[in-house]
C-alpha cells in the first residue's frame, strides 16, 4: 500500500526536539545515583513509625534509669555515725560511646548555585552511651537514634 505523506507531516519531520541544555544534562546525569534499589514501601512505612517510637523509648529508658539511680542513692547507708547522708548528686559521664549505622539513604539531587550537583544523603544511626551513674551503681546503657541530612558533592562525567 502506497500511503502518501501529508505535506504538513513532511515539514514536521524535518524538526527535532532541542537538545538538553548543559545544566539540565548535568542534573540528570547526577540523578543516576538515585536509581539504586529503593526500600520496599512496607519496610519504609515500618521504619517511619519505628524511628520516632525508638527515640521516645530511648528517652523513656534514660529517664527510668536516672530515676532508679537516684532512688538507689537514698538507700546508701551513712558512712559515719550521726551524720545524715543526702543522696549524692551523681554526675553521669559516659564511659563508652559507640555509634552503629542504621541506614544511609539517597534522598535526591540538588544543583548548587555553582552548578555543582549534590546528592542529598540521609544518615541514621544509634548512639549507644554507657554511663556509670556512681561508683557503686551499675553501668547504664542509653541508646539514642540520631539522623543527619548531608549534601555530598557528585562527580559530573
Amino acid at each position, binding site marked *: 500500500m502506497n500511503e502518501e505523506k*501529508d*505535506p*504538513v*507531516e513532511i*515539514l*514536521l*519531520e*524535518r*524538526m*527535532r*526536539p*532541542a*537538545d*538538553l*541544555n548543559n545544566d*539540565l*544534562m548535568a*542534573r*540528570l*546525569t547526577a*540523578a*543516576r*545515583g*538515585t*536509581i*539504586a*534499589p*529503593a526500600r520496599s514501601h512496607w519496610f519504609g512505612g515500618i521504619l517511619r513509625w519505628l524511628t520516632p517510637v525508638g527515640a521516645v523509648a530511648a528517652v523513656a529508658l534514660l529517664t527510668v534509669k536516672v530515676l532508679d539511680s537516684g532512688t538507689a542513692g537514698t538507700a546508701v547507708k551513712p558512712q559515719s555515725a550521726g551524720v545524715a547522708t543526702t543522696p549524692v548528686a551523681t554526675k553521669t559521664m559516659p564511659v563508652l560511646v559507640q555509634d552503629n549505622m542504621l541506614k544511609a539513604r539517597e534522598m535526591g*539531587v540538588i544543583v548548587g548555585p555553582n552548578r555543582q550537583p549534590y546528592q542529598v544523603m540521609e544518615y541514621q544511626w544509634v548512639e549507644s552511651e554507657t554511663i556509670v551513674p556512681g561508683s557503686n551503681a551499675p553501668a547504664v546503657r542509653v541508646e539514642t537514634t540520631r539522623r543527619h541530612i548531608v549534601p555530598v558533592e557528585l562527580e559530573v*562525567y
Partner: protein
Amino acid sequence: MPTEPTPDEWRSWLRDNGPRFLLFARQQTRTESDAEDILQDALVESWRRAGRMPDDALVFSTIRRRAIDLARSSDRRGVREEASGPAEPWFAPDIEQRETQRLLEEAVKEITPIYRDVVILKMWGGQTFQQIAETLGIPLNTAASRYRYAIEELRESLKGVLL
C-alpha cells in the same frame, strides 16, 4: 531489583532520548522548571520500575502521571506560577531553514493543547496511536482524531506561509 545503569549507558540514553521526553514534559506542565523536575523524577522512576532501560511508553506515561500529580498539588496550594524569563526553544535550531523553523515552531505552539499532546507523542515520541491512547488515557479513535485535527490546524496556520 533495579539495575543501576553505567555512567556511559545513562548518559547515552539521556542524550538520545532526553530531548523528546523533555518536549513532552513541557506540554504537561506550566513552567520550564516544573518540566525539568517532572522529567528527572519520571526518568528515575521509570528505570526503577522497569529494573533496566525502560521503554519509551513507560517514560511518557510516567511523565504524564507525575505532571497530573503536580498539577493537583499545585491547585491545592493555590499556586499559580507563570512561566518567566525567555522561553526555551522546543526544537533544535536549523541553520539553513531558520525562518521556516521559527514559523513551524510557532505554529506547533499554537495547536490546541490536547491535540498537540498527540502530535508530539506521534511525531517526536515515536508512539503508536495505541500507545498514545494508553499514555493519555483516551480511546484509540480519539487519539487518531486529535492527530488529524492537529494536522488540520497546522495546515490552516501555515497556509500561504509555508504551504
